[in-house]
């Protein structure tokens, strides 16, 4: 019997860390508009003129921010913006799709802006589509949506399980960029869920009313629920297409340890993107979310550094079909 290699124990817990990161990003997108509203109250010295609800908001935000700054009007500028484009402790970080859309809409290269996408692009080259699994605020809601559909399944609801061609999203990306160039505006941000979520939360909280993007986002939620699980991310999202292209030769990827695998196919069931980890088919779509590592009952999934997936390794050595083939072979 060959020596069975154990995956590093931390990998099992990455899925929990991922949920924590998703929750943190989502809560940041909610609290940043509140901070801005509080800053406007402070800057206008208008406490005595506020409504009672606004006063309670003022008091709560004052309580939360007093430990960090003495000058709320100017001292809370370290984190601003959304995942589409934001300031993070002095660094301007933009979504690569924002840069691509702006380059196409303006048909010029404005390097100071293009370089703001440097960190995400390098991280995507290393970790693949990690943004989709780890940061995207829409993913948080989409995964809760999946959970909801599984929960509703108990009450007889049939979630949609259609399959389309995965390459459709590249066409969406290309069409979006071409339409951006034609219309002369960054039109691609109109259908990009993380940009929509960040914007609509800001509009809804600080500017007193949601915009049109919320309707589109609800349509995508219904699409996921009724047509295909995580269908928008898998088949239509232009940002996902860009990240998939960038992360095709990513350095860190998940691998199945064939000696430990018992062919239980839980990894296939849990994979949000409908990939096929059981048959070593991760591909450029894998977003390194580590859900398959967390659910694997026999520690058969691990992270490796390699720029390509393995070919199909055959049936898992703990599974029945492998044992049967061994017996017949002997």
């Amino acid at each position, binding site marked *: 019997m060959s020596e069975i290699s154990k995956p590093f124990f931390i990998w099992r817990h990455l899925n929990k860390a991922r949920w924590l990161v998703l929750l943190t990003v989502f809560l940041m997108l909610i609290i940043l508009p509140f901070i801005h509203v509080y800053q406007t109250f402070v800057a206008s010295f208008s406490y005595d003129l506020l409504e009672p609800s606004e006063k309670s908001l003022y008091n709560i935000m004052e309580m939360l921010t007093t430990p960090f700054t003495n000058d709320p009007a100017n001292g809370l500028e370290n984190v601003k913006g959304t995942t589409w*484009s934001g*300031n993070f402790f002095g660094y301007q970080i933009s979504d690569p799709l924002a840069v691509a859309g702006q380059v196409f809409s303006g048909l010029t290269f*404005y390097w100071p802006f293009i370089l703001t996408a440097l960190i995400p692009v390098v991280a995507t080259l290393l970790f693949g589509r990690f943004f989709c699994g780890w940061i995207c605020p829409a993913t948080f809601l989409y995964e809760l949506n999946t959970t909801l559909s599984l929960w509703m399944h108990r009450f007889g609801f049939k979630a949609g399980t259609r399959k389309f061609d995965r390459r459709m999203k590249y*066409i969406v990306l290309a069409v979006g960029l071409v339409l951006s160039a034609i*219309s002369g505006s960054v039109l691609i*941000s*109109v259908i990009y869920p993380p940009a929509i979520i960040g914007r609509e939360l800001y509009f809804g909280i600080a500017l007193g009313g949601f*915009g*049109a993007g919320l309707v589109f986002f609800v349509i995508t939620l219904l699409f996921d629920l009724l047509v295909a699980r995580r269908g928008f991310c898998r088949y239509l999202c232009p940002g996902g297409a860009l990240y998939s292209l960038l992360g095709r030769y990513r350095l860190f990827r998940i691998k199945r340890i064939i000696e430990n695998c018992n062919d239980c196919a839980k990894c296939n069931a849990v994979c949000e993107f409908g990939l096929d980890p059981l048959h070593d088919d991760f591909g450029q779509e894998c977003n390194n979310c580590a859900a398959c590592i967390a659910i694997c009952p026999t520690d058969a999934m691990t992270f490796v550094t390699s720029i390509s997936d393995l070919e199909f390794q055959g049936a898992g050595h703990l599974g029945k079909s492998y044992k049967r083939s061994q017996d017949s072979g002997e």
Partner: protein
Amino acid sequence: MERRTFIQSLIFSAAALAAASLPYGVARLLAPAYASKYPHHLRPPGAIADDDAFVEACIGCGLCGEVCPPKCIQFDKRQGGNKIYTPFIDPEIKACTLCDKCMSVCPTEALTETAREEIKMGVAQIDILTCYPWVDRGVCGACVTICPLGEKAIKFNFANIYRPEVIKAGCVGCGLCVEVCPHPSLPIAIVGADQGTVMSHRVY
């Protein structure tokens, strides 16, 4: 290639293109053609003068609005067409205080950092047939008092110290005078920088 497969692939690619542009069509339907309900559609300070170039540069990230201390920057949320999610200021609701935070935060230089005196959002235009001091219905001077640029932009008429006069070279069009004007019909408004500082009542 056979004709049959060629036609098949042609039909397939046409269908794929239609399916791919479907979400943009949905988004376009939700955002009908650009029609501002405000007569004076001001961009934030430091905006690129050509509005098409501004829309090309703006990525709709909302950072300018998120740092604005008076929260005067609004966004085309539902109306907008290709200008959707671009910022604008309506001085009748809330006017710019020229704090230049939005200019420093803009990632694409759609809002370029500009010195306070060189900002060109527009120019204030006074309707001298409505303004209280100009029609001898009292004394006011609110616009002159509030102006952040002082004597260079708006000052009292030489003959009557309560009649305001805008100086075109100095006015940057921040709109504080519009916000503060007590007259219900707002005899002062921000218009394009190429227009005059006194409203014309000529009928063309």
